[in-house]
């Protein structure tokens, strides 16, 4: 049945609206889901021997997952919606490695500066505000080195070299993080924590996912994400990879992949989750007002103007991780 297929995913993605056609085909049975809270967690578990058919990392993780021999290439010919995938996303680094497709993009979005519109006006807001002593104790930054470094690279004008910072750049970027450390109320490790603090007024601005922006808006909190590519915003794309430990028949795996990338799924995620989808056709069938309101009417601008979360080179990644721990500890 449909439940034979196991998916290792962020929690929430077991929403049946994402794979209606799969359920139709498999006797109204959804795949089995298990969850991770971060890609690192997922990687640790998978390399510890955790088995599933599909997993849902973001593009920056793919290179490492391939290197660790966790995933297998996808067969483009079996992906019925491949042709309709936004061309910008097909270009994203590491989706294709050595000519082989490893990740089928599913959703994408932004990591950006979210702020309380009742406390800060849209004109004043900027990444540099994070270092402003006026916001001492009023900001939050993710407890994840790559995301924090992306923010700092944008703030210091080093966005273009984010994946390959020179030593001086690395120092400059690190120093920015150091300079905002005294202002940081907390380094958030879960989005809920960020949302709560924004809601209560405990923090007034912070670096977070667009999911948080929407959650805040839906809960009638006056908040918005700064979407000005010139002031600095990051973009990510996530998708599904076929794990080597997969045991379910390949056709069933592809059935789910195809269901996920179906325009109907795209319409559903855009309308109900406020996330942009990877299928270009989805944007045509979805509610245009929503697309406008959630700020991704023009995908191209994001992919071109924003910092894209590509994998940083392994040596730099290790440096970032180590340095970030120091910064958090006040060193």
């Amino acid at each position, binding site marked *: 049945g449909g439940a034979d297929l196991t998916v290792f995913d962020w929690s929430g993605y077991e929403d049946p609206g994402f794979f209606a056609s799969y359920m139709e085909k498999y006797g109204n049975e959804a795949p089995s889901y298990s969850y991770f809270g*971060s890609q*690192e*967690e997922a*990687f*640790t578990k998978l*390399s510890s021997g955790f088995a599933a058919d599909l997993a849902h990392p973001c593009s920056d993780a793919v290179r*490492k997952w391939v*290197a*660790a021999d966790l995933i297998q290439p996808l067969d483009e010919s079996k992906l019925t919606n491949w042709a309709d995938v936004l061309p910008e996303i097909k270009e994203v680094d590491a989706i294709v490695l050595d000519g082989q497709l490893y990740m089928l993009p599913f959703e994408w979005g932004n990591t950006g500066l979210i702020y309380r519109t009742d406390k800060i006006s849209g004109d004043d807001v900027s990444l540099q505000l994070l270092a402003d002593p006026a916001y001492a*104790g009023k900001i939050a930054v993710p*407890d*994840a*080195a790559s995301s924090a470094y992306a923010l700092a690279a944008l703030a210091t004008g080093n966005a273009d070299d984010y994946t390959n910072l020179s030593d001086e750049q690395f120092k400059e970027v690190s120093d920015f993080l150091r300079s905002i*450390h005294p202002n*940081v*109320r*907390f*380094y958030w*490790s879960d989005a809920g*924590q960020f949302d*709560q*603090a924004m*809601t*209560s*007024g*405990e923090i007034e601005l912070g670096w977070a996912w667009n999911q948080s922006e929407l959650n805040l808006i839906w809960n009638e909190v006056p908040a918005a994400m700064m979407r000005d590519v010139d002031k600095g915003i990051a973009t990510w794309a996530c998708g599904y990879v076929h794990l080597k430990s997969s045991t379910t028949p390949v056709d069933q795996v592809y059935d789910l992949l195809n269901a996920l990338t179906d325009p109907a799924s795209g319409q559903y995620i855009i309308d109900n989750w406020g996330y942009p989808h990877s299928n270009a056709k989805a944007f045509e069938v979805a509610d245009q007002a929503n697309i406008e309101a959630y700020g991704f009417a023009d995908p191209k601008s994001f992919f071109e103007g924003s910092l894209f979360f590509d994998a940083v080179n*392994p040596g730099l990644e*290790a440096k970032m*991780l*180590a340095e970030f*721990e*120091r910064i*958090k*500890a*006040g*060193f």
Partner: protein
Amino acid sequence: MIFRSEASRGYTLSAPATAYVGFLVAAPLVILVAYSFWTQSYVTLDKTPTLKNYRDAFADPLVRHLMLRSIWIAGAVTAVTVALAYPIAYFIAMKARKKTIWLLLITIPFWSSYLLRVFAWKLILGFNGVMNSALLMLGLIDEPLDFLLYNEFAVVLTLAHAWAPFAILPIYVSLQKIDPSLLEAATDLGNGPIRRFMRVTLPLTIPGIIAACLIIFIPTVGDYVTPALVGGSDGKMIANLIQVQFGAANNWPLGATLSLIAMLSVGFVAIVFVLTATRLGRRIK
């Protein structure tokens, strides 16, 4: 079976439990030790034995800093928890009529999920939280206090709550064991309640206090969830660093090294503590 010697019966019956625990303590330790001599770069594990991890760990002031802070926070948590718990344990053991009802009352809150309880603390201590709202309403403050949450105070408070039964129970048990005639003898010999407490009750409950301290202190040093949830920007502890090595950094050898260093440091502190406490107890006359 009746006829085998007492000792062999003792070994046979306790074997499953001791072997199980022994195996699950010893085997991982061996593996941890092995890992600590290996190295990792990106996704490859290099099994050439080296002391590099130890050198790195000892050279890094961050490790020292986090270790000391962990011990300091765990120590503070232990002290606060035990200090808050002692009177309640005393109340239940010595004063309360319905002891079991009280014991139940203090256990019930812990039948909800730990993660949810931590969550609840954020509701209370948060910016718009219960505490601030109440203080604002009473007109005691004009602005919400922001030093309630996301700092060491919050970590200590949350953990003092989380560990409450583990502190209360051992102390309760040791109080319960005190022969009431000892207290009467002290009274009879002229002591008022306070001197009697200092000279008889307290010294006799030192084993319970030590047990409570160890049960709280040691695991708290290794806690990474609570600091992550309520610790804010400077509540990080050594376990968070270890967690990063096993997770994001994917550097298990370093993680194993840090774990071993943490265990040894904790063991050392615990032994010093037990010796000091025991000696202090003996000094009371």
